[in-house]
């Protein structure tokens, strides 16, 4: 459904996308993952016909987006990075305009508005001015706009940006549901998010693809170890030494006030760690897994050293 071949985009002298190629098959949900400035938005803007590539080709639904853009755009639902909303109209009249803009038959618009309002849980806000909606609800209106014409392909640029965790979960669930009927390309810079909703990821960095694989296989591309972060009340160096002796632990380091232990992904040494600490008479204040941050992944995939490793703690 989406085919990108040697796509390159220069902004003036600046190379934003450097000859990337990838495919998205019908019915797939693919994540475009990359840190800030990687070229995700640029790629999506070319795919949606907003911009022309400097060289290379992009096809959506068998339409070349440089030469047959108008036809291609009919098959696309697009949520840009900045949600494209008119603030001085109601949700209803906005969706009405968006539907007509996308060439939806006028006599079907009313039904479709009802449908997308239900899908995106906007029932209570249908006659509210968009300017009065919170960021999370604006995001939902943005998604509603992208699906109103029942597009075959959906392109969503960071759909969970700037919304609270509960709504993030809802949005992800929504995307998963939509993915049953649509082909979806979604961009993100959060690895766990992509791994939750996507079948496959394409990781880009500085305009180039550094990895592309199914989620299950990604961990083997990566170093195959996970980190656990512990906060222990006890003598630091003694704790470090004790933790090192716990079975399955490959490495322990101390980053004030945490001990970070590493172990292979297929093991869960948490109960062993806990027992060791308690038996030594110390107190375990907290324990959690540390997700490998995107920066760590790039560090690993690109072998570069210039990322700072601020890790993301989950749970």
């Amino acid at each position, binding site marked *: 459904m989406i085919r990108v071949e040697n796509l390159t985009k220069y902004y003036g002298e600046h190379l934003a996308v450097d000859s990337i190629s990838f495919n998205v098959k019908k019915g797939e949900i693919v994540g475009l993952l990359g840190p800030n400035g990687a070229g995700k938005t640029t790629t999506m803007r070319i795919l949606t016909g907003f911009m022309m590539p400097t060289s290379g080709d992009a096809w959506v639904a068998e339409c070349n987006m440089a030469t047959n853009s108008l036809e291609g755009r009919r098959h696309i639902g697009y949520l840009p990075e900045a949600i494209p909303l008119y603030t001085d109209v109601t949700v209803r009249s906005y969706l009405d305009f968006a539907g007509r*803009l996308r060439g939806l038959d006028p006599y079907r618009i009313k039904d479709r508005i009802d449908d997308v309002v239900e899908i995106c849980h906007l029932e209570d806000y249908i006659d509210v001015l968009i300017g009065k909606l919170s960021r999370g609800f604006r995001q939902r209106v943005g998604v509603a706009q992208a699906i109103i014409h029942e597009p075959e392909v959906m392109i969503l640029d960071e759909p969970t940006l700037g919304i609270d965790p509960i709504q993030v979960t809802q949005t992800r669930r929504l995307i998963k549901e939509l993915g049953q009927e649509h082909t979806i390309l979604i961009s993100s810079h959060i690895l766990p998010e992509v791994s939750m909703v996507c079948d496959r990821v394409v990781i880009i960095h500085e305009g180039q693809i550094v990895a592309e694989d199914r989620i299950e296989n990604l961990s083997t591309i990566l170093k195959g170890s996970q980190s656990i972060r512990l906060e222990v009340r006890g003598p630091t160096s003694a704790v470090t030494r004790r933790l090192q002796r716990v079975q399955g632990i490959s490495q322990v380091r101390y980053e004030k006030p945490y001990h970070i232990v590493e172990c292979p992904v297929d093991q869960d040494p948490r109960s062993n760690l806990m027992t060791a600490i308690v038996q030594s008479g110390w107190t375990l204040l907290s324990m959690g897994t540390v997700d490998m941050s995107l920066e760590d992944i790039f560090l690993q995939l690109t072998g570069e050293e210039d990322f700072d490793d601020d890790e993301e703690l989950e749970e």
Partner: protein
Amino acid sequence: MKNTMLIALKEFKSYLTSPMAYVIACVFLVLYGSLFIWYLEDTQYSDTSINGYLDIWGNLVLMLFAAVLAMRLIAEEKKLGTWELLLTAPLRDTEVVLGKFLGSLGMLVSMLALTLYFPLLLRVFGIPDGGPILTGYLGLFLLGATSLAIGLFASSVTSNQIVAAVVAGGMLAILYFIGIAGDAIGGAAGNILSYISLYSHFSAFVTGIIDTRAIIYFLSITALFLFLTIRSIETSRWS
């Protein structure tokens, strides 16, 4: 056509729902009304015409208001991010540009229509000559349309509405005043300046004569700037 009308209607509606547009329309009416009255008082009510707002001041007010109406057309969409919505919808750039032009033209024509009550007053209290009034309004319509097209172009080169208004105002002022300069200079060079000037072509409409050359001139400038707007959008897709 359907798409053009969709955009035109949306633009026209968004003027009608914005308080700013009502302020603009009111100030416009007050200014045109004042020009109208001052002229009648100046001539001791001997000349029952609308010449009050067909002179330079009337033209400048019209051009200024057209520039202000047009400044938001594209710049605002860029700022809101809705530009990306329009340019990724299955619409030709031409349809977007024409729609926006027609929507703003609708607003400007509505504003001009409200001033029709000045000639109506003349009818009630005197015996005005209908010909110059009709051609005068034709002239105002054409000058307004041209100014909107120039304003639309200015709006397409920036995402800042104020910048758009200033750029449009600058271009309009140059296109207008080179005519006055041309008349002052005289000779071949002066003629050329007059030939491309808004000012020189507008004066034809005040006398009650329908000057086809002037009509063609205004329509050409309008078409030229609509074309430039389309090109400017196209260029932005490639840059």
